[in-house]
């Protein structure tokens, strides 16, 4: 009995978390005006892809899709490289000021990104990077959370592996490249998802630095579209599906790593 009630509650919650997505997909497949009726339709009476056609043909959303995709991939690759090097150094080397430096980095994680936005905008403007990919790549080059996560993981790699390689004559960069990086694969996968999703989903910063329609990332393009198409739920749902679907695919494919990363990140003392 207890078991049945428990499952009814769990299913009820699952329905609440999933219904907005199901309705979104369903409405995106409807003709104009079919989602603005009472009582609401939950399944299209006639299926159509016209909303998607409109997005691609008249509103050239493909360009925004590509912007988001390229930027998310670039930021992920670059920040993984830089973060893994720094995380390795913090985990496996002894150097002056190490603890102080690491604590400074950790404690500055409390500073909200919004504080840096005005000067960063001015810097990028001065460098001529506003409205270019660089404006999004530069602030994403490295991040403190990534360094922290990699350091935590890297500490558990035994020193003897590194010493053995050194005796065999490997230099430090080779050790990083051939021994450390392969062993870091799980945590790198975790961070890759964090970075990819973080860049893909980001809104405020691209809204600030991208000034042309053709340079907008998907969320910015979508928010912009919303202001003009308040009365077109079907079109807006198609845009939302396009924005959310890649994220869900990446997440479902790699969720094992994502969940694990969440848990490593939360047990810092």
């Amino acid at each position, binding site marked *: 009995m207890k078991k049945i009630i*428990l499952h009814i509650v*769990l299913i009820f*919650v*699952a329905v609440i978390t*999933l219904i*907005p*997505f199901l309705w*979104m997909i369903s*409405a995106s497949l409807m003709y104009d005006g079919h*989602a*603005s*009726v*009472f*009582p*609401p339709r*939950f399944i299209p009476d006639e299926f159509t892809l016209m909303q998607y056609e409109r997005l691609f043909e008249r509103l050239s959303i493909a360009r925004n899709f590509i912007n988001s995709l390229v930027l998310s991939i670039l930021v992920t690759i670059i920040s993984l490289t830089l973060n893994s*090097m*720094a995380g390795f*150094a913090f985990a496996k*080397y*002894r*150097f*002056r000021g190490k603890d102080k*430096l690491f604590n400074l980095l950790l404690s*500055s994680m409390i500073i*909200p*990104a919004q*504080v*840096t936005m*005005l*000067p960063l*905008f*001015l*810097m990028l403007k001065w460098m001529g990077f506003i409205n270019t990919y660089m404006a999004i790549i*530069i*602030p994403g*080059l490295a991040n403190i959370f990534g360094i922290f996560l990699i350091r935590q993981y890297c*500490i558990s790699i035994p020193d003897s592996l*590194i*010493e053995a390689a050194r005796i065999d004559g490997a230099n*430090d960069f080779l050790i*990083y490249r051939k021994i450390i990086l392969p062993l870091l694969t799980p945590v790198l996968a975790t961070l890759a998802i964090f970075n990819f999703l973080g860049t893909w*989903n980001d*809104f*405020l910063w691209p809204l*600030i630095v991208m000034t042309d329609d053709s340079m907008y990332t998907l*969320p910015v393009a979508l928010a912009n579209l*919303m202001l003009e198409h308040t009365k077109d*739920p079907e079109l*807006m*749902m198609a*845009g939302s599906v396009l*924005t959310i679907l890649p*994220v869900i695919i990446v*997440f479902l494919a790699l*969720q094992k790593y994502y969940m694990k990363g*969440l*848990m490593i990140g*939360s*047990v810092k003392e």
Partner: protein
Amino acid sequence: MKKQRALSFKTTTTTAYFFLAPALSAIFIFFFIPVIAAFIISFTDFDIYTLGNFSTLRLIGFDNYVKLFSDDLFWTALGNTFYFVVVAGPLSIAVSLTAALLLNSKLVKFKSLFRLAYFLPVVTTLVAVAIVWRFIYHPNFGILNFFLGLIGINPIDWLGDPDWAMPSIILLAVWKNFGYNMIIFIAGLQNIPEELYEAADIVGANAFQKFKHITLPMLAPTTIFVSIITMIGYFQLFAEPYVMTQGGPLNKTLSIVQYMYQEGFRWWNMGYSASIAFVLFIIIFIGTLIQFKVQKLSK
């Protein structure tokens, strides 16, 4: 922090700096310098004229901060943001904890499937789900009013009514975020030694007593962590009101970050905007300190 065994070579410092240099210079130039610059800018009259001609920039001391004090719109934004944090924060955490407790029960079948369903909103794009919810909240055609109608509740103009707009945004935030903390709570629950519950069974404790005297105290560090990250995130409220209400109706959903964005990047009052950003930082800082103090006291 645990002491780890590090390699002892004379060259380690140089090599370490070689590995650190790219990431640390990026963080230094594009994070630390902007933080300091923002601090300085907040004491200047940096505006649209300064963007054109840098020599018009003047230091004006605390004028921006003084002006904030008598700025009604700033107080409105501050009040709205506090409303959001104080209600949505504890509510999200309560829902997360409840979901974690339910899912952690040994009776549950298809655990990972439920976990996945609950977590899905977390990874999805906020702007997109805010748009979806904007239509869910539609007063005439929205599915929320339809379902409420089935149980006899009259239609509500969720986003158009000044009293309902912020609760609507809070509901969306709880729906979007509870899965994140739920996962962290599940990890925390799994770390509680089983023997504690067995011992409680021996002395005949009931479920509520076990929850109060074992689960809650053992989860305290997790709860503090979760409260801090939730609070920091919620103080940065921006996309939901931007997409759903544009701060309205009657400025009832205008948030601090939105006000900062408008002042800085719409009207180019960058000095003033920087001072708003710093007030946000100070609030988050104090909020974090308080939660750490609470944790110390409860030990």
